């Protein structure tokens, strides 16, 4: 096997429990997003567009749908000879198997995969974010700086700095201090969880980290602070585009809504940086007489007879005459019956909302049950449910 410049390792094992029922039966990277995509499509499309030809995807939590979705990467045109996408679940060795204990441990357990390629650099990614980024530019930056590690950073609002790993850099972009989720941040440059390591350095730190029983085996908490402390050449690579962690129901809803702006920050229609995804072979969607569809994105196979405003409509969704859907996300195969009113609702795949149901921030006439959960004003309804109005139109 020939020597490869850079291998990407995509951490896709997260359970994403803060996404509620959306991750009940699938891993977070496999959650649908943006009217057609799954969250991991963005990172994998970035890899393809950045000509990162070899990508290991580390999975752990409920990977069935994720594995069969990823396959050998055909959706992203990455089923290439001698390259492509490799799914790397935890596995058993002579002495039995071990689950991944942390992000660093996950990479360490798959060091034999990296050894196959002997790359110059290793790009560490997570499958949890919505963004478009050219990793090859970051790789160039890393090489220009002759860095040991380069961390992708983005400016975040000062009041959110406590949620991130925060970098302080000198004039050349070299990291002089690293604070993991600080209560009092010295800076607002946050780590995006994107790292480029020189492979030799990475191996060394992973080995030492593995021997250390006191660590949590995490890049942000353990490896990076140690490298900064040991004066390794760690650089920050500033990224200015759209970047969202969709780790909570609220942020998932917001990132979907972001796509509906008149000029969205994230342009899905730019053919020079396509976001690839599965294609379902459904006919064009149908918008009926008497309906009104605006400020929305709508996918193939859907049939809209009612009013759809500021809403993300996935494939094969049906909205009956007289229904009103606003500020919502309708996942694939959802059925919205006559006269339904939805406002700020995320409806899971295959769910049916029966005629007359009203679900909004102000008012609802359905029984609140396990299928339905509220997150600061947004109602999340799980997959494969049937929701009907309560017999005595309950008011809240």
């Amino acid at each position, binding site marked *: 096997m020939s020597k490869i410049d850079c291998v990407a390792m995509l951490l896709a094992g997260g359970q994403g429990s803060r996404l509620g029922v959306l991750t009940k039966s699938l891993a977070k990277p496999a959650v649908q997003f943006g009217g057609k995509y799954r969250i991991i499509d963005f990172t994998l499309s970035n890899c393809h567009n950045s000509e990162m030809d070899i990508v290991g995807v580390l999975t752990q939590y409920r990977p069935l749908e994720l594995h069969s979705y990823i396959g050998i990467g055909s959706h992203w045109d990455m089923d290439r000879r001698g390259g492509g996408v490799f799914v790397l679940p935890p596995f058993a060795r002579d002495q039995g198997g071990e689950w991944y204990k942390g992000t660093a441990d996950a990479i360490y357990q798959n060091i034999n995969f990296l050894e196959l390629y002997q790359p110059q650099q290793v790009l560490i990614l997570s499958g949890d974010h919505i963004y478009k980024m050219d990793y090859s530019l970051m790789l160039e930056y890393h090489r220009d700086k002759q860095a040991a590690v380069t961390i992708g950073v983005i400016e975040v609002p000062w009041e959110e700095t406590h949620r991130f790993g925060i970098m302080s850099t000198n004039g050349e972009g070299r990291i002089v201090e690293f604070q993991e989720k600080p209560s009092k941040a010295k800076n607002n440059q946050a780590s995006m969880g994107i790292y480029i390591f020189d492979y030799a350095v990475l191996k060394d730190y992973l080995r030492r980290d593995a021997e250390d029983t006191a660590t949590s085996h995490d890049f942000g908490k353990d490896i990076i602070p140690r490298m900064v402390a040991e004066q390794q050449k760690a650089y920050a690579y500033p990224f200015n585009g759209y970047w969202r962690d969709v780790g909570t129901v609220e942020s998932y809803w917001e990132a979907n809504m972001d796509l509906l702006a008149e000029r969205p920050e994230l342009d899905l229609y730019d053919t020079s940086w396509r976001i690839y995804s599965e294609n379902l072979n*459904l*006919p064009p969607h149908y918008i009926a007489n008497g309906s009104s569809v605006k400020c929305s994105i709508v996918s193939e196979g859907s049939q809209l007879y009612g009013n759809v405003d500021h809403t993300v409509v996935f494939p094969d969704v049906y909205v009956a005459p007289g229904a009103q859907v606003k500020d919502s996300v309708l996942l694939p195969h959802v059925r919205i019956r006559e006269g339904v009113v939805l406002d700020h609702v995320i409806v899971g795949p295959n769910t049916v909302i029966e005629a007359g149901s009203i679900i909004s921030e102000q008012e609802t006439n359905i029984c609140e049950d396990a299928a339905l959960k509220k997150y600061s004003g947004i109602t999340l309804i799980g997959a494969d449910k049937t929701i009907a109005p309560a017999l005595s139109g309950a008011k809240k």
Partner: protein
Amino acid sequence: MKRMMGIINLYNSKDLLWELTRGRPLAAVPFAGRYRLIDFTLSNMINSGITNVGILMQGNFRSLMDHLRSGKEWDLARKREGLYFLPPVTGINVENGFPNDLSAFQSNLDYLQNSRQSHVVISGCSMICNLDYNYGLAFHQEKGADITVAYKEMGDLDSYPYSSMLGLDEDGRVRDIEINPVRARYRNLFLEMYIIEKKLLMELVDSAVSRGGTNFLRDAVMKNLDKLKIYGIHYQRYVAHLMSIRSYYRHSMELLRPEVWRNLFFANGLIYTKIKDEAPTKYNDSARVSNSLIANGCIVEGTVENSIIFRGVKIHKDAVVKNSIIMQKSEIGSGATLENMICDKDVRISAGKCLIAEPHYPMVISKGSLL
């Protein structure tokens, strides 16, 4: 299990789609927002479990090959069998001077011979429907037929000039065939689909060519009407017969009826086509859309009524598109008005332009035009 193979015959005796088939074969004409005509024939075959399909290519078929490529989208990129392109005969084999389907069949007898299946489904590309050939095969075997041909009984004879029609007896046996009459005498529109045993097909082709034949239907089938048991099977559901710009337009508009949409796209399986990786379609605040079919990848800021919009079309603010068909990647400038128009691929209509044709007599704007 797998007893049938498919042959798609791209030789068509009459092509009245003029403006749409200038730069492409009939099989590659775009239809229904995201398909090419051949997608329907091919999808019917694979949805019927057929995994070996040969295409008798004709004319300038580059756009068709671009579309089909490996056959992957139709699950026909296989190690064994799959999709075979059978290019036109050149040189020595064309005894009768011009390319024709009978000699195309003949020069591919070895392909037929080497295939494992016992029966062949032959189909053209201008009859658009969603059907299962297994019903045809069951019928074929029950009747003990030599050839089974599919037809649809039509209400209105006048709508189908230049179509082939079948004369049937009470038992459903074909007793007469009219090929492309100006005014038909029978009501049974021939759907250009045959089921026939492979051995018989090979025999009929060889025999007809050696007697100077050039047209499969006329010389191999019609001339044997008395000798062979040819039965018609009635297909009851929706068929669009695309043989002129008017019928193309009329059938496109029929897709806006939800029962036609459902029937054509879901009746017996999905219709597969080339993947384009387009984003979902985006409607802005100023979009006003009604009774329209809209494919992925569009950006709609204007008004769209009773229209079919293909993948990647942009309709700018204050543009009005009515009773029209706008093909892939076309762009309608702000304030432009289109009525009763067919825009081929990559057409750009400048801001403020107004193009209105007569109802039922659509005008075609050719591929790549900038108006």
